[in-house]
């Protein structure tokens, strides 16, 4: 079935003979013989083993190999920016929620509300315009400078960070806006909870109330929200990578689409579903460790 679709797509670009040849090769390669049911079972068992067959665009490199070379880039970008955005957004948002009547908190909210609805990659475009044209400080293309040899040298690492700066910045800015807004809402609710009012009546110093009571308790739901947001950030990272020609999965996916590499697309889809779902699951499973209300029933 996959092959037929590949073949039908290939029909646009290839002549009939080559196409037939390709079809033959692929059928052999996949061992697509036997009944439909047998094929079906085999298809799923391959899928579960992480075997998506060869990439069409980089034939005959297996799809998994293509994916695994680009994963470290995406993973690095994603983990770094998600964490930084989560930390900064929650920190500032928590404080702003506690002082929600203050003028600066209101100004910050307006800024965050303006940034948050902008998709990640739009921020990428804006950054490209600003840093690529107006103040060309950071490189806007690639994962490291052409001609550099990957090593653990200082200059290479600096180069790596320089290249990762703008892609992750676009993710961080928008992400921070979102975490700021949600955390601010949470902490301004927590602020009016009975136990915070009580702590204030008990004369516990304000800084203690802010960090030990309001922030701490508001952070808890943000862990669950982190799990729910992973899919969206992942989407954003894919497109951001494209704009910055960053050698991660997004770039690979783009290549897969332009080359009609169905196997690779399938591989990336299945792989990312699996990765994001397990990450979300892990966060969910870790939750009882941080919330005593769940831990000690």
């Amino acid at each position: 079935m996959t092959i037929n679709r590949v073949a039908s797509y290939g029909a646009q670009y290839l002549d009939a003979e080559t196409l037939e040849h390709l079809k033959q090769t692929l059928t052999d390669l996949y061992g697509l013989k036997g009944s439909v049911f047998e094929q079906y079972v085999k298809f799923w068992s391959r899928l579960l083993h992480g075997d998506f067959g060869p990439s069409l665009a980089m034939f005959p490199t297996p799809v998994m190999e293509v994916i695994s070379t680009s994963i470290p880039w995406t993973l690095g970008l994603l983990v770094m920016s998600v964490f930084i955005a989560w930390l900064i957004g929650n920190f500032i948002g928590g404080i702003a929620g506690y002082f929600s009547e203050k003028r600066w908190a209101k100004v910050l909210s307006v800024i965050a509300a303006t940034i948050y609805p902008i998709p990640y990659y739009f921020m990428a475009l804006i950054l490209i315009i600003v840093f690529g044209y107006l103040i060309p400080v950071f490189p806007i293309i690639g994962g490291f400078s052409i001609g550099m040899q990957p090593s653990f040298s200082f200059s290479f690492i600096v180069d790596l960070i320089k290249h990762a700066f703008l892609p992750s910045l676009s993710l961080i800015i928008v992400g921070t806006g979102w975490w700021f807004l949600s955390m601010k809402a949470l902490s301004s609710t927590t602020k009016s909870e009975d136990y915070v009012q009580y702590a204030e009546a008990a004369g516990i110093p304000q800084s203690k109330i802010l960090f030990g009571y309001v922030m701490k308790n508001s952070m808890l739901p943000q862990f669950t929200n982190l799990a729910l947001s992973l899919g969206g950030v992942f989407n954003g990272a894919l497109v951001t990578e494209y704009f910055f020609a960053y050698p991660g999965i997004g770039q690979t996916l783009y290549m897969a689409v332009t080359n009609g590499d169905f196997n690779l697309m399938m591989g990336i889809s299945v792989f990312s579903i699996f990765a994001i779902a397990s990450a979300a699951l892990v966060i969910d499973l870790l939750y009882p460790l941080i919330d005593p209300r769940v831990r000690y029933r």
Partner: protein
Amino acid sequence: MEEKGTVLRTENLKAYYSFRAFGIDRNIKALDDVTFKIYEKEIFGIAGESGCGKSTLIKVLYGLIKSPLRHIGGDVVYKINGEEKSIFSFDKEALRRLRWNFMSYIPQGSMNILNPTIRIRKQFLDIIKAHRDVVNVDEAEDIAVEHIKSLGLPLEVLKSYPHQLSGGMRQRVTIALATVLKPRVIFGDEPTTALDVVVQRGVIQLLKDIQKELNNTVIMVTHDMAVHAELTDRIGIMYAGKMVEVAPTSEIFKAPLHPYTQYLINSLPKIGDKSEKTSVPGSPPSLSNPPSGCRFHPRCPYAEQICKEKEPSFEELKPGHFVACFIAKRGVENA
């Protein structure tokens, strides 16, 4: 009452809630011209229906004035170490220091009074460290353990999270927290409401024990007259933002002077008494636009012309018995 020292007195205290929503201003006159005294070493009860201003009064006395509540006028004067001081003369930090050392607060029992994510032990430590210059954690912990023991509560509660305790135990922990630094004045805002009767009895018992032990002042707000009968020495009755009657508990129950108090007492159901009780006719007035003159006059069966026109002053008609009512005043003078 010369032999007793005054710990707290208010003078023409006024506090309003001001709302501004969608271009419309509203003022709710929750406290209007409230003047009374609370003596040392007594349990003073404040009674009244919902919306009569009793909770607001406690907030103002405790210095917890937050928007939309505003202090409009009058004064609250405490006697701290023999010196008279207005609560409004303290700055934020001084007020913070005053709390728990001099006066503390027991809120209404609810699920959420104690921080759900920290253990009771930590809650104690936070409060002790906020008010005492303790050198280390052990020292603070000793204070907490000592106190829990002296109240007869099990030490295991210190290790627990709030949700692991029953409602009654949580409320007793709240009382323990309020008394850990042995304050001179304790405010209780409906501390026994929402508890089951058996637990409520235990809590009342604990409050009595503590007052006897510390020999301090307890100010107890509740709408439940039976709790007042069980616990308090004197009672202040509030109606529509005004203090209408203050007297010793037994006098309030046996010989109330204000018509509103009379209704309140006579309408209390008792087991073993099936005689018909009547409610106060009408409904409580709106505090944003209270009636003229005496605020009770629209519901009062004895109301006369003067009640509609002039506000009755709050006067000591009998020794220790203060009432704001023209009719009661005339009755006492004629007797």
